[in-house]
């Protein structure tokens, strides 16, 4: 499935019923140098727009919201040692977590890449 995007600057990629979630290139550029990522625990149940993770730059902490309802099945442990991966490869190696989806139809509420690029353009 092609990536989907939220207005909170997360990307979501669904494969075999598991969604991989990270923050967009636009988001990492706005945040600047990322020095710490606090990831949720595996098994944590997420509610759409609820707190999912925290990303910290040198200057400030920012919340990352769950783009969809579901449950965490895996987190990117590489970010513990190398949070700068989020700056270097936000939409590939810098992924945050993987989750099951309670309701795949929620994906329809998210933007495709073209719509997200237009959205960012307008900010």
């Amino acid at each position, binding site marked *: 499935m092609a990536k989907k995007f939220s207005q909170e600057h997360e990307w979501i990629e669904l494969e075999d019923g598991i969604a991989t979630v990270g923050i967009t290139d636009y988001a990492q550029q706005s945040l600047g*140098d990322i020095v*710490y990522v606090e990831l949720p625990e595996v098994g944590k149940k997420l509610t759409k727009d609820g707190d999912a993770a925290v990303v910290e730059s040198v*200057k400030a902490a920012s919340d990352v919201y769950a783009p969809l309802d579901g449950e965490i099945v895996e987190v990117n442990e590489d970010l513990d040692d190398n949070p700068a991966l989020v700056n270097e490869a936000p939409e590939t190696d810098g992924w945050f977590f993987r989750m099951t989806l309670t309701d795949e139809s929620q994906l329809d509420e998210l933007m495709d890449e073209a719509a997200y690029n237009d959205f960012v353009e307008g900010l």
Partner: protein
Amino acid sequence: MADQETVLLKTALHDLHVELGAKMVPFAGYDMPVQYPLGVKAEHLHTRAKAGLFDVSHMGQVRLTGENRVAELEKLVPGDIAILKPGRTRYSTFTSDDGTILDDLMITNAGESLFLVINAACKDDDIVHMRANLGDGVNLEEINDRALMALQGPEAANVLARFAAAVADLKFMSFAELDIAGIPCFVTRSGYTGEDGYEISVPNDRAEELARKLLAEDEVEAIGLGARDSLRLEAGLCLYGNDINDTTTPVEGDLNWIINKRRRAEGGFKGADVILDQLENGADIKRVGIKPEGKAPAREHTAILNSDGEEIGEITSGGFGPTVDGPIAMGYVAIEFAAPGTKVDLMVRGKARPAEIVELPFAPHRYFRG
């Protein structure tokens, strides 16, 4: 209330910041560069490795003249200004009648005058305070026609000496009026990064010219307020409004060193009764360095707990130190927990996380003392 929307002030270097691609943010009423395309972390590390140029023109510059300038200023600050020789600079604080800190400042004996540098956010209040409390025989002049920039880092002296050889011999906390690249400047060998370097007061209409000359040197990068903050935090230096303010005294703020023997013996400054009593008998709280054990930064207002889970203080500045390569913080704790080595917990996002009280600074000072 639309007319209360603040129109941000611009420093003489504003156009240059924009040209350099800085991200501009409101700070103390000014539109200031928080970072350049290099980014906060690289700017921080560059300053520690080579030299960084900071625009600090938002800070206030004040000249005091008149025969009573020293004695009258000593009524408002606990520092020994009389002992300050011409060409020497001292860090001090304005204190209130309650002994709390109204601002911190640099005071230079410029020979025929005292030259003060005060914080941007406090400068209007400071000037009102001085005008109201400085007695006869002192004239206060706000210097609004000069910008202020800081060149900081181990290569700062080499770079600046190319434009003014005499700066090489200037010692830490010393001042000279001299031409840099033909531009008349007030130079102090000082700064707020923990590194060797200079603060340079330059006429507004020559500021951009000087900044461009310095930035053209290989070692120099433009550095924003973001890195200025992480550099000063690693250096254990107070940010007024966070780490010291009008509820904390110099003793609570661990600034006893700014009050020398004569001022301790004689008093005669605002709040002296409170401050001298705390010097004698101790204060209930103290500013300390705090090193979180994990990787999560603990930001300002984070609660500090003892091993019984009781709140014993609060973080006043906290973040990530790029040179330390980890989280660092400063804050106040009850005096019985202030000893380095004391284990505490920090409440970050509802979780108690282990940390330790440590000596400041986090990054060693590298001042040039000659």
